[in-house]
């Protein structure tokens, strides 16, 4: 376990995230150009899809159906559990609860990648179709949480948030369209399809870019993530002790659930670990804009701080190894 933690802590990924946080703490002017950030996230999502597609071309529908089912199940369960905890125990407003829940119902691609790297490095690689599961998990969670929010707000008409004179112009099909055609979905799914279509033969010539550069560019991306997280540390106190606990305990609950469902679906230890990490992770690429647009009353400080400054580093440093240990016990 300790050794496993070491592997994780001493990876360039974790450390360059830490460097980014540090840079903000010492009030450095270090910043990645915005276009570089956009370019890197486009690259990472597309590469993820392509590689996943090539690997998918080796696996049969039979193998996937089970894991796919439990993944969608996680996409429904996790936002609900997150919402209830935040609303009932945390006493957050409907909008805030639904907004945060949307992030924890979806999945963080970077955390997913870190988990993939981890299981490979400890010699328990995950199934080839994991990126496919990633695309399955990305959207439902957001939709479910936003639906809960909209429904609740409509319900308690006495609440100050009742007069929805701005939400009508945001019908659900519009939100769904935005999510389905969002950059991350298009690049992931598009990459998957292309990967399946071209197979190993077509993959070879582009492999140097989409596989060879992957970890290095991810390291640079994590520097930027660290900068973004670092600039949110100041908001931790605003977020409060409850959200801090939530950002650490909720992932463990969701992770355990994910590992268990994964083992039910007969996945390998590596696969369970990655699925657990997906369930435990909080999205900060697809979810934030969707929530901002649809639940503007939800306070971004809460969901961004929780997802980016609490849960992401927790998963990166301690979460993934924990989910690995849990998976080991569940998939004997």
């Amino acid at each position: 376990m300790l050794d496993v933690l070491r592997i994780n802590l001493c990876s360039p990924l974790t450390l360059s995230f830490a460097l980014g946080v540090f840079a903000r703490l010492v009030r450095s002017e270090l910043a990645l150009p915005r276009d570089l950030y956009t370019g890197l996230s486009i690259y990472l999502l597309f590469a993820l899809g392509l590689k996943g597609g090539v690997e998918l071309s080796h696996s049969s529908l039979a193998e996937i159906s089970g894991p796919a089912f439990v993944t969608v199940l996680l996409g429904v369960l996790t936002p609900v559990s997150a919402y209830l905890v935040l609303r009932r125990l945390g006493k957050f407003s409907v909008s805030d609860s639904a907004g945060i829940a949307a992030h924890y119902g979806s999945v963080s691609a970077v955390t997913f990648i870190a988990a993939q790297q981890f299981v490979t490095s400890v010699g328990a690689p995950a199934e080839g179709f994991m990126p496919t599961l990633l695309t399955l998990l990305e959207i439902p969670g957001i939709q479910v949480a936003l639906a809960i929010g909209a429904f609740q707000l409509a319900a308690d008409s006495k609440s100050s948030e009742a007069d929805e004179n701005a939400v009508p112009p945001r019908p659900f099909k519009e939100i769904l369209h935005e999510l389905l055609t969002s950059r991350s979905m298009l690049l992931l799914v598009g990459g998957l399809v292309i990967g399946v279509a071209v197979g190993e033969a077509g993959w070879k010539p582009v492999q140097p870019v989409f596989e060879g550069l992957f970890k290095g560019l991810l390291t640079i991306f994590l520097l930027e993530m660290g900068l973004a997280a670092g600039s949110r540390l100041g908001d931790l106190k605003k977020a409060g002790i409850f959200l801090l606990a939530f950002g650490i305990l909720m992932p463990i609950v969701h992770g355990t659930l994910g590992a268990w469902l994964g083992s039910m679906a007969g996945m390998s230890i590596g696969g369970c670990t990655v699925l657990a990490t997906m369930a435990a992770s909080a999205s900060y690429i697809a979810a934030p804009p969707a929530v901002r647009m649809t639940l503007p009353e939800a306070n971004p400080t809460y969901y961004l701080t929780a997802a980016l400054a609490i849960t992401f580093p927790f998963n990166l440093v301690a979460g993934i190894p924990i989910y690995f240990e849990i998976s080991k016990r569940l998939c004997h």
Partner: protein
Amino acid sequence: MKTVQLCLVTVIAESILKERLIQDVRDAGARGFTITDADGEGSRQRRVGAILGANVRLETIVSKEVAEHLLGILSAEYFERFAVIAYLSDVSVIRGEKYV
């Protein structure tokens, strides 16, 4: 050169609203607009960087009526909930007919 007095509406808003604002500007009857990227700070915290994007700065030259109409839409839809401001100034253009 003969110039016409028109109204320049400048809107500064968080960038995720960009496409919606463009639609509102067209709906209000503007014949054109110009957009630039911007950072900023206001009653809400400093808007920079990656995750939620920063701001956009949208300018449109319109008639007084269209300006009024646009301000109406903006304050109804955005002012309370989103990081959005708007201001008016007087400008003189040639080819006034181009803008109304």
